[in-house]
C-alpha cells in the first residue's frame, strides 16, 4: 500500500506562560482547538492538549489494530471500546515527559475467552504503530475485558 500523509496546523501567539494556541487538522475533522500551558498541565477547562491528542491517536490506532487481530483470530468483534490515558509528568531535571499510555479495551466478541482476548490484545499493541513508538520512552500497558460475557 502506498504511503499516506496527514497534516495538522497550529498557530501560537505570545509567550509560553500566558500565550495560547489553536490546533487544526488538515482534513477539517477538527479545527481551531484552543490550548495553553496552564490547561495542559493543570485543569483542562475544556481545552485540549498535545497529550490528549496523543491519547486520541493511540486509542484510535489501537482500536483498529485490535479489530484486525480479533478478525484474524477468527473472532471479528461486534464492537470494541478503547480508552487511552496518557500521563505527562515532571522528571528530575524539571522538564516534562510523557511517561505512560494506558490502554483499556472492552470487546463485545463471541468465541473467545478472556485469557485469549488478553493475548490477542497484547499482539494488537505490538501491531499498533503508536504503541511501538511510545514504548521506546514510556510505559504502555494493555488490559482487555470481554463485554457482556462470551
Amino acid at each position, binding site marked *: 500500500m502506498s504511503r499516506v500523509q*496527514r497534516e495538522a*496546523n*497550529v498557530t501560537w501567539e505570545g509567550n509560553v506562560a500566558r500565550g495560547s494556541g489553536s490546533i487544526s487538522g488538515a*482534513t477539517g*475533522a477538527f479545527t481551531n482547538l484552543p490550548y495553553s500551558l496552564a490547561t495542559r498541565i493543570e485543569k483542562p477547562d475544556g481545552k485540549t*492538549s498535545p497529550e*490528549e*491528542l496523543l491519547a486520541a491517536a493511540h486509542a*484510535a490506532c489501537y482500536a483498529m489494530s485490535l479489530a484486525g487481530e480479533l478478525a484474524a483470530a477468527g473472532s471479528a468483534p461486534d464492537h470494541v471500546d478503547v480508552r487511552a490515558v496518557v500521563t505527562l509528568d515532571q522528571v528530575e531535571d524539571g522538564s516534562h515527559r510523557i511517561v505512560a499510555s494506558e490502554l483499556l479495551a472492552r470487546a463485545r466478541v463471541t468465541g473467545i475467552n478472556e485469557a485469549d482476548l488478553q493475548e490477542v490484545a497484547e499482539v494488537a499493541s505490538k501491531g499498533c504503530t503508536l504503541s511501538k513508538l511510545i514504548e521506546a520512552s514510556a510505559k504502555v500497558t494493555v488490559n482487555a475485558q470481554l463485554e457482556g460475557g462470551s
Partner: protein
Amino acid sequence: MATDRKAEVTWRGDLMSGNGRVDSVTSGAFGGLDVSWAARSEEPNGLTSPEELIAAAHAACFSMALSGGLAKEGHAPEELKTSATVTFQPGEGVTKIVIDVAGRVPGMDDAAFKQAAEQAKENCPVSKALAGVPEISLTARLQG
C-alpha cells in the same frame, strides 16, 4: 505533578469494513470524530486518523516548547505558525514527520530562530515520545 488526559474510542466490526469513532476526551474539546481504515490509508474524505492526531499533538507541543525557548532568550514570539506532516506506511508504521515553522519574533535573527526551533524539536515531550520515528525533520524561518 502528573497530568492525565484520556480519550475514548469505539470500533464496530472488523478492520477493513468496520468503522470507529473518537467518542470523547477528558477536556471535552472534541468528540464524535469518525475514523476508518479506508480513510486512514487512502483518501481521508474529511475523516481524521491516528496520524492526523499525532501531527496535531506534535505541532502543538513543538509550538509551545519553541515559545518557551524563545522567551527564555528574551524574544517572546508574537506569532508562530507550525505545521506537522506525518507519513504513514501501512504495514510499517509512521516513517517520517516533517515540522515547518514560520515565526514573527521581534529582535531575533534567522540563525538564532533556527537554533531555538531545533532545540524545541529535540526537547518537547511529544518529540521525546516519538523519538522512535525514523526521520523527524524541521524547517524554520522568520517572516516579516
